[in-house]
C-alpha cells in the first residue's frame, strides 16, 4: 500500500515531515520512502545519505534515417509537442528540447527504419540505503531538461518494484499532473501546510486535488504559531480532512535539521509530535506489526 506526503506550497516542511514520519513508521511497517520531488529532491540531504545505485532515465528520441524518409510529414503532423519541424520539401528535423519521448512519430511513420530509436537522458533514479532501516528511492531531473513526468513515473516504479509493505511518497509542491502522478494509488495523503494566507491558499488546492482523486487526506500544520490554525481547520473541514497535528515554529527542528539528525530520534519534545502523526497514520491504515 501507499501513502503520500504533499502540500501545495513549497518550503512548508513537507520533506521534514516525510523523513521523520518514515522513521517513526519503520517500527510498524517494512517500508520504502520515495522522493518524487524530482526538480528539487532533498530527502537524502535530510537523512544525511549520499545518493547511490544510479540508474539513468532515458527517453525515446527519434533519429531520422534520411535515406529512407519519404518526406511525408506524418511524423511532424502527429507530434503534439510540435517538436518536429519540416523543411519545404518535407525533410523532418527534431527540436530535442520539445520532444516528450512519446514515440508517436515512430508509430505513424509508414517506412520501417526511417525513424530510429535514439535516446535522450532526462535524469536519474537512485536507490539508497539509509541508516534508519528503510531504503530511499530518489528521482532527479537533469538540469536543463523540462519534463519531470518520466522521472516521477520511473522513480515510483523503482520504489514499487522493491515490494515493500508500505510505499511512502514525498511529492513536489503544487498540484500539477506530476504531483497527481506521485499521489496516484495512495490510500492516504498527508497534506503539510502553514497557517499563513499563502499556505492556506495552496493547502486548499492540494485538498481539492486529493478530493478529485478520491484519496482521504489528513492535514499537518507546520509553523502553527505563525498564523491562524482555525482558518486551516475551516478549509480542512470543507474537504473532509482532519487537522491531525500542529507543529510550532521550532529552533529544535532547525537545529536537528542542521545537525543532520532527524528530530523524531531526539529527546526534543517535538519528537513526540511526529510519533503522534505516525500513530494516527497506523490507526488509519490498520495493521502493521
Amino acid at each position, binding site marked *: 500500500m501507499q501513502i503520500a506526503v504533499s502540500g501545495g506550497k513549497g518550503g512548508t516542511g513537507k520533506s521534514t515531515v516525510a523523513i521523520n514520519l518514515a522513521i517513526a513508521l519503520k517500527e510498524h511497517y517494512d517500508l520504502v520512502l520515495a522522493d518524487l520531488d524530482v*526538480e528539487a529532491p532533498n530527502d537524502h540531504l535530510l537523512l544525511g545519505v549520499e545518493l547511490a545505485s544510479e540508474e539513468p532515465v532515458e527517453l525515446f528520441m527519434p533519429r531520422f534515417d534520411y535515406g529512407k524518409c519519404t518526406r511525408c510529414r506524418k511524423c511532424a503532423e502527429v507530434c503534439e509537442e510540435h517538436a518536429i519541424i519540416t523543411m519545404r520539401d518535407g525533410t523532418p528535423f527534431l527540436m530535442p528540447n520539445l520532444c516528450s519521448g512519446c514515440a508517436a512519430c515512430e508509430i505513424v511513420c509508414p517506412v520501417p527504419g526511417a525513424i530510429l530509436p535514439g535516446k535522450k537522458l532526462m535524469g536519474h533514479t537512485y536507490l539508497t540505503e539509509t541508516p534508519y532501516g528503510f531504503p530511499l528511492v530518489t528521482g532527479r531531473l537533469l538540469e536543463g531538461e523540462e519534463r*519531470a513526468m518520466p522521472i516521477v513515473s520511473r522513480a515510483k516504479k523503482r520504489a514499487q518494484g522493491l515490494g515493500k509493505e508500505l510505499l511512502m511518497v514525498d511529492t513536489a509542491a*503544487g*498540484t500539477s499532473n506530476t504531483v497527481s502522478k506521485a499521489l496516484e494509488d495512495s490510500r492516504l495523503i498527508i497534506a503539510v501546510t502553514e497557517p499563513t494566507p499563502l499556505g492556506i491558499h495552496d493547502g486548499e488546492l492540494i485538498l481539492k486535488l486529493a478530493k478529485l482523486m478520491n484519496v482521504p487526506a489528513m492535514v499537518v500544520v507546520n509553523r502553527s504559531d505563525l498564523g491562524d490554525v482555525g482558518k486551516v481547520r475551516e478549509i480542512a473541514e470543507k474537504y473532509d480532512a482532519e487537522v491531525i497535528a500542529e507543529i510550532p515554529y521550532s529552533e529544535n527542528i532547525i537545529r536537528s535539521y542542521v545537525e543532520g539528525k532527524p528530530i523524531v530520534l531526539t529527546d526534543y519534545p517535538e519528537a513526540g509530535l511526529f510519533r503522534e502523526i505516525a500513530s494516527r497514520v497506523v490507526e488509519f491504515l490498520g495493521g502493521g506489526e
Partner: protein
Amino acid sequence: MQIAIASGKGGVGKSTITASLLYLLKDEYRFVAVDADADAPNLDLLLGVERWEEERELIGAKVARINVESCIRCGICQERCPYDCIKVIDGDYVVSELTCEGCNVCGLVCPVPGTITLEEVRSGVVRKTMTRYGFPLISAQLDVGRPNSGKLVTEEKEWAKKLMGELGLEHMIVDSAAGIGCQVIASIGGADLTILVAEPTPASLSDVQRAYKVVQHFRQPAYLIINKADFNPGFTALRGWAEAEGIPILGEIPYDRAIPRSMSMLKPFVEAFPDSKAAEAMREIAERVREEILK
C-alpha cells in the same frame, strides 16, 4: 530589461523578497511584475491584490478520452501509454485525466478508429491587475492536475511584453516557480539576468546549484541573495559556492519574525515593518540592484 528571480527550492523566501524589492523600486522605475509560479502563485497575495481586472482562460492542455462503447478492450493503449495513465476500472479502459500528458500515443495505436480522441481542456487562467503600488502584475493559476507546461509562463510573458509597449514600461521582473522544470526554464529563458535566492542549508544549496545550471545554460549573469542568513551560522558552503562561481552576492537578509508577520498582513515586509532588521537589509539590496543591475 528582463530580470528573473529563482531559487530552485520552494519556501526560501523568493516571493517575499520579490514583493519587497518591487515595493522599493516602484517609485523610481517603471516595470511589470510577472508571477511565473502558475502552480502556486503567491505574489498577488503578498501585494494585497483583491481583484483581477482581466482574466483569460488558457485552453491548450489536451487529454485523451476512450469511448467505452466502441472500445474492444484489447489493452494496446494501456501497454503503449508512455506515462502509465490508462487504468482498467470495472473492466473498462479509462484515461486518468489528472496524469495524462496529451501525447496521443494511445489514440495512434488504438485499432478501432474514433475510439480514442484527444480533447482540449482548460489548463488554467492568465490574469492581470494594477496593484495598489502603481505597477501592473501578471499572474496565472494552473488548474489542479494539469501539466505544468512552460506555455502558461510564455503566455504570461507575452502579455507582459504587450503591456510594456502599451504603458511604456522599461522592465519585466519575473518571479519564477520553484524547481528547475518547464516553467522555470520558460521564466529564465529570455531574461537578461537572474537573481537567485537561497538560504544557508544543504537542501537550499543543492537546489540553487541546480537552478544556476539552468541560468548557465542560457549564458546569463546571476546574482545571489542569501535569506535567513543567520539561522545556520556554521554553514558557510553557500557563500563559498557563490564566491567560487563568481556570483556576486547582493546582500544577506537575517531571519526575522517580521517577515512571516508581514505575510499574514498581506503586505511586503519593507512596507509592514520598515524598521525591522530584515527591511534594513532589503533596502541595501535594493540599492545594489539600482547601482549594479538597473543602473
